[in-house]
């Protein structure tokens, strides 16, 4: 079988996954606003509307999870919505390029399933695909995916270590 060519992958560790079920869009918006006020970034976000409300999976830095969870619980209790479920630690494993086709997500899911691994969530962007996995699954996932994708032998996805600062004060010059 021809191995699938990808140009890059990376992973981000020490994340928490919050799951919300059947929240109204307005409630999700309120929570997103509160997280923004608290300067909490969401490196992965999936919101799916349904007949009973919105199902949400969002990732954030594990260190920010207590604050984010408290904000979500406060909203849930105030409005009678379901409280968030938390899974941690999780990793975000990102692959490039998506190349506008279903091949990458289908191959990745099939390959992981073949190793008995099921991602907690998956999402695509214009250029990439990210899968969210329990952190302990990283070695097994890398081994399984490395056998299907065309990467140098023994390659492991580099860890993303980038910080972007947002300041409320605009600097001159």
């Amino acid at each position, binding site marked *: 079988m021809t191995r699938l060519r990808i140009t890059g992958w990376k992973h981000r560790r020490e994340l928490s996954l919050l799951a919300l079920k059947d929240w109204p869009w307005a409630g999700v918006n309120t929570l*997103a606003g509160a997280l*923004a006020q608290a300067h909490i970034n969401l490196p992965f976000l999936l919101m*799916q509307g349904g007949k009973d409300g919105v199902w949400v999976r969002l990732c954030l830095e594990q260190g920010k999870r207590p604050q984010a969870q408290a904000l979500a619980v406060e909203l849930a209790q105030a409005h009678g919505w379901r409280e968030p479920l938390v899974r941690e630690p999780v990793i975000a494993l990102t692959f490039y390029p998506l190349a506008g086709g279903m091949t990458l997500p289908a191959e990745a899911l099939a390959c992981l399933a073949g190793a008995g691994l099921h991602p907690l969530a*998956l999402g695509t962007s214009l250029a990439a695909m990210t899968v969210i996995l329990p952190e302990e699954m990283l070695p097994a996932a890398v081994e399984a995916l490395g056998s299907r994708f065309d990467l140098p032998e023994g390659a492991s996805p580099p860890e993303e270590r980038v910080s972007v600062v947002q300041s409320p004060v605009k600097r001159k010059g």
Partner: protein
Amino acid sequence: METVAVYFEKPVRTYGIKARLGNIALSLECTADQLTGLTATLAALEPPLQLVSCSLMWEGDLALLQVCLPQDQAPRLEEAAARTGVGTAQCSQAGVVNLQGPHFGDRWGLASEALCGMESAGVEPLSILGVTHTIQVTLAPESSGAALEGLGRGFCAPGGDNG
């Protein structure tokens, strides 16, 4: 940890804000075994299925797979799903708005900005995905104009070309 950029923008600059119409959003519900069969079938499809976006989450033992793809590709996906015993939970015409900009995946507040824009326009999307540097809003095609207007309050495109 290396600090690579500092941002504070209002509105948030993007590389462009456009609505793409002519898509189908399919929601599929399947067991783990069905998902394995379906993804193996989709991986083997020739030519490969064209894709606008794909997402997956689990609810208990059920995988919820949402695939948005060009309209002419939808029958191929439905056929593959039927062959592997996977039912279609929902099938909708869909427009897609992509918001993409520098370091979008590393900046707080952008999802909130997008959600506020949608709420101010009175639009409830089918789904929102925030992955790497893209926020992707999938919505009913007839809501696209209102959504672009709402999103245009918080985001801007080069040369003010929102639409």
